[in-house]
């Protein structure tokens, strides 16, 4: 199973070099250009691929949505994943290797909505429950403290996480598509692929949020740094190849915005939901609307 994958990946590198040598060459999409370059060479082995349908759809240039958006089958096409595929994508988001683009290597023209949705849902509950636990642990010694479930935090966590996981990819995708149309470069990813990358990159925050309930300040900040590095590098290695052909300032600004927003989410969650042992009860609302407004303001670079 390793050789067809390596073969496909190298073909893509050749295609990218060809495009770099001749930027005027028009391409429709990265997947179809690699198929065009390698149409004679790559023998598509249907038998040992994990999903036969994705091979044929790659050759067809990614034409998948043939039903209208009002039919059920249209939405079923976004859930066309097996257990092993989801687990493989999660593994890819936790261990980003420098050469591997998450979209090309793991998603491969089969973006799914299962992963992003359920990872966000799990993250909402893990942040809320661990936050509640950390409040309880940090105030256990206080004799006046009476345990409260603080259920409203679930609502706040849900709003924050789902807004981040859906609005930020929308902004990033819109920006990339606008630049692509303006500069006629290699294509941006589709909206679903962007949502997919963001959704799977949030997975590392689930164990991080559970570990945040340990009320040591230095441990919490260390965990933030580790999680940021891992999931930030997934995002960076995914978006850098698309953005690097743009002007230097735009490229760096885009990457910086992506990383900063990601950091804001992590730090905001940590500061709002979790306490270290020495802090008192944080106020209920001022941090979160500020974070949401800040996110919304940065979200409109175009």
């Amino acid at each position, binding site marked *: 199973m390793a050789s067809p994958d390596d073969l496909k990946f190298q073909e893509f590198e050749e295609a990218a070099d060809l495009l770099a040598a001749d930027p005027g060459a028009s391409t429709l999409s990265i997947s179809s250009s690699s198929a065009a370059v390698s149409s004679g060479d790559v023998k598509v082995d249907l038998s040992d691929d994990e999903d036969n349908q994705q091979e044929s759809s790659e050759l067809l240039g990614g034409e998948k949505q043939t039903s209208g958006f009002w039919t059920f089958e249209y*939405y079923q096409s976004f*859930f066309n*994943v097996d*257990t092993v595929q989801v687990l493989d994508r999660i593994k890819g988001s936790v261990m980003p290797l420098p050469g591997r683009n998450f979209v090309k290597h793991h998603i491969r023209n089969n973006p799914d909505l*299962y992963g992003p949705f*359920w990872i966000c849902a799990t993250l909402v*509950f893990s942040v809320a*429950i661990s936050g509640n636990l950390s409040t309880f642990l940090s105030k256990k010694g206080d004799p006046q403290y009476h345990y409260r*479930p*603080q259920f409203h935090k679930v609502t706040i966590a849900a709003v924050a996480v789902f807004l981040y996981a859906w609005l930020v990819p929308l902004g990033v995708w819109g920006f990339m598509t606008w630049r692509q149309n303006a500069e006629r470069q290699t294509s941006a990813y589709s909206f679903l692929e962007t949502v997919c990358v963001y959704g799977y990159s949030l997975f590392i925050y689930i164990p991080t949020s559970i570990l945040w309930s340990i009320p040591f300040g230095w441990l919490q900040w260390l965990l933030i740094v580790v999680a940021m590095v891992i999931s930030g590098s997934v995002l960076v290695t995914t978006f850098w190849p698309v953005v690097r052909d743009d002007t230097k300032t735009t490229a760096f600004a885009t990457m910086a915005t992506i990383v900063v927003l990601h950091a804001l989410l992590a730090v905001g969650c940590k500061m709002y939901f979790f306490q270290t042992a020495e802090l008192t009860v944080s106020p209920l609302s001022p941090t979160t609307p500020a974070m949401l407004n800040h996110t919304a303001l940065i979200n409109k670079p175009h």
Partner: protein
Amino acid sequence: MAEVVDVNKPLFAGLSDVSIAEDIPVEGDIAVPVRSQSGDDEISTLDEPVKDTILRDLKAVGQKFVHVLYPKKSSALLRDWDLWGPLLLCVTLALMLQGGSADSKDDGGPQFAEVFVIVWFGSIIITLNSKLLGGTISFFQSLCVLGYCILPLTVAMLVCRLVLLGSMEVGGFIIRLVVVTASFGWSTFASTAFLADSQPPNRKALVVYPVFLFYFVISWMILTFSPSH
């Protein structure tokens, strides 16, 4: 001499050798609940006393409770689905989760509407998820199964409230933890016993995980219930 068809042998007799084996399960969407008495009996149910009507439905609900408590592979929940049981359980659970430290609306346990929304909205999302992944179970059957399998958690809630009437701190917490964990495992096991067959085999874990998350959240709500002193 021409061969005479043996008139004593029935026509198409050879076909009886090719028969559908009885152990092959017949799958399909059953969208309409099959009532055991239909047709001519329906007219007579108008004239029966109200007590009979209510008792019949209550007996059906009670029978399904028994099926949840002893989850064998029976199709009673799937064939004759109804939503009375889930409604009853959800209302009971939401009512019992009230009366917590709800003096300040912000910091307390879940409101009644929040429990309702989580149970019903969560069930709908899990059902949609399993249908989108290619499951063959119908929408209301899945809602019915998920709703009925809240029964062990409701029983655990009752036990927790009884335990909280006493005043043991750590011991009471440990008892509540054990009871809630056991009933969480029971609920998840019961619902997967009913739902797992209708999924494609390489996606079973993808369907079971949201069910696990759903009952985990409900268990957390039960475990963290703290009455106001």
